[in-house]
């Protein structure tokens, strides 16, 4: 087994099964490191990582930052809320400035689709996408995949159902590319106003508008966070109606398998896409996802940094 074929992580679309396997296998090893008394290894000592977050995110940034620190990298955070972006600096200028500071890896989140690719084209640094617009959020999907493998042994042949605002969800997008590559069968379910328009995307998966049918054979259900802005855009009538039609509730789970895994990328709108008793119930693996997030991000950083070394 050799190094990763990819040089940057923009998304999971087009990433080979072998690469995903390598990341997930390394993540399992890093999960063990996280159980040790000293939860730190010296692999990335001397490397500098910048977390470039143009969109607010506490949890993804914290998870990346912990992963970087546990690999002994030096980290700096750059968030748009208190940065020069507010003063009108362009993306290229921001990047050039960061580059001049000799950064090895850039972890980026931006509302614009394709920003990670743009940065890679204009810089020597290794780029990791931490979410770009409604495009992809690959590390979230990788941690979801690791969680399913941890609980069910494999993704091959498993049924994964994603419920919610599929059209605007980068989590759903990355998950369906990644999970189908690993041999899982993905079913998407949500309001008809929020069906993705991309036909290539939809050709790989099953669309089911009836949530009861969508969860019936599922081994894992991923509930997506409902964004309040969708009400303003008149794509949804109300939170209450959404909950009644697509919310993951106790009654809905009576239609599903006993052992079905309940997942959520967080933060949860309790009582909207997911009821509290389910989020805290025995089927929920939401906190396993959070732990796996650190391990998966360590694996991605470790493998990408290792691949760069012998160019």
């Amino acid at each position: 087994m050799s190094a990763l074929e990819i040089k940057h992580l923009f998304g999971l679309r087009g990433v080979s099964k072998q690469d995903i396997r390598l990341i997930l296998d390394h993540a399992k090893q890093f999960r063990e490191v996280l159980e040790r008394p000293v939860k730190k290894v010296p692999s990335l000592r001397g490397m500098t990582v910048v977390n470039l977050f143009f969109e607010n995110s506490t949890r993804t940034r914290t998870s990346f930052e912990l992963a970087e620190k546990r690999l002994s990298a030096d980290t700096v955070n750059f968030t748009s809320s208190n940065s020069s972006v507010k003063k009108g600096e362009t993306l290229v200028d921001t990047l050039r400035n960061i580059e001049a500071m000799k950064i090895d890896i850039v972890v980026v989140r931006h509302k614009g689709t394709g920003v990670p690719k743009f940065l890679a084209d204009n810089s020597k640094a290794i780029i990791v996408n931490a979410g770009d617009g409604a495009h992809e959020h690959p590390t979230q999907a990788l941690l979801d995949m690791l969680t399913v493998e941890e609980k069910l042994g494999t993704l091959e042949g498993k049924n994964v159902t994603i419920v919610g605002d599929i059209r605007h969800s980068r989590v759903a997008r990355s998950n369906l590319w990644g999970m189908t590559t690993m041999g899982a069968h993905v079913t998407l379910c949500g309001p008809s106003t929020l069906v993705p328009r991309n036909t290539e995307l939809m050709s790989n998966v099953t669309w089911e508008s009836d949530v009861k049918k969508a969860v019936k054979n599922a081994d894992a259900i991923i509930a997506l966070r409902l964004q309040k802005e969708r009400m303003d855009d008149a794509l949804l009538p109300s939170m209450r109606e959404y909950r009644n039609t697509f919310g993951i509730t106790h009654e809905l789970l009576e239609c599903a398998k006993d052992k079905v895994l309940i997942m959520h990328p967080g933060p949860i709108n309790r009582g909207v896409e997911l009821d509290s008793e389910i989020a805290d119930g025995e089927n929920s693996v939401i906190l396993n996802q959070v732990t796996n997030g650190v391990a998966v991000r360590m694996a991605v950083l470790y493998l990408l940094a290792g691949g760069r070394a012998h160019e």
Partner: protein
Amino acid sequence: MEFALDEMAAKIAKMHPSADNMIVLGMASRGIPLAQKLSKRLSEKFGKPIETGSLDATFYRDDFHYRKKLGSTEMRFTEMPASVEGKVVILVDDVLYTGRSVRAALQAILDFGRPSVVRLCVLVDRGHRELPIAPDCVGLTVETAQNQEVRVNIEPIDNENSVYLVEVEA
């Protein structure tokens, strides 16, 4: 190989006449079955089970940035059966070469705690050390050239128990 392991077990028993506080750690990947074989002999000698585990020091290696290939993750895992604090740690590997793996392993062990002693047992010492590291027990010492490779096969990872000296293309 069996004979070499008998010798090693005898030597360790002489150095440390008690099974209490002893922990045998195999270095991934072929040190792991070796450690199990050695530990079996030691527990027969002492008449009680010995804590046995494994150590994968990949993430501690200093040549991470120079390696062309990342190793396979198969048979590479760390399993600490007990705390190493105050213990006699017997570190086991198949081949001792530059000493860099042992250095990485030592750093990894020290992150788990402070053992009272660490001993190093290797099946084959092939020389060419790059760091001041010396084994305590050696099964076989061979003179080798840099373009040669010592290939150790151990069940159940391989189909046989054997040691080969092979020429490799530079």
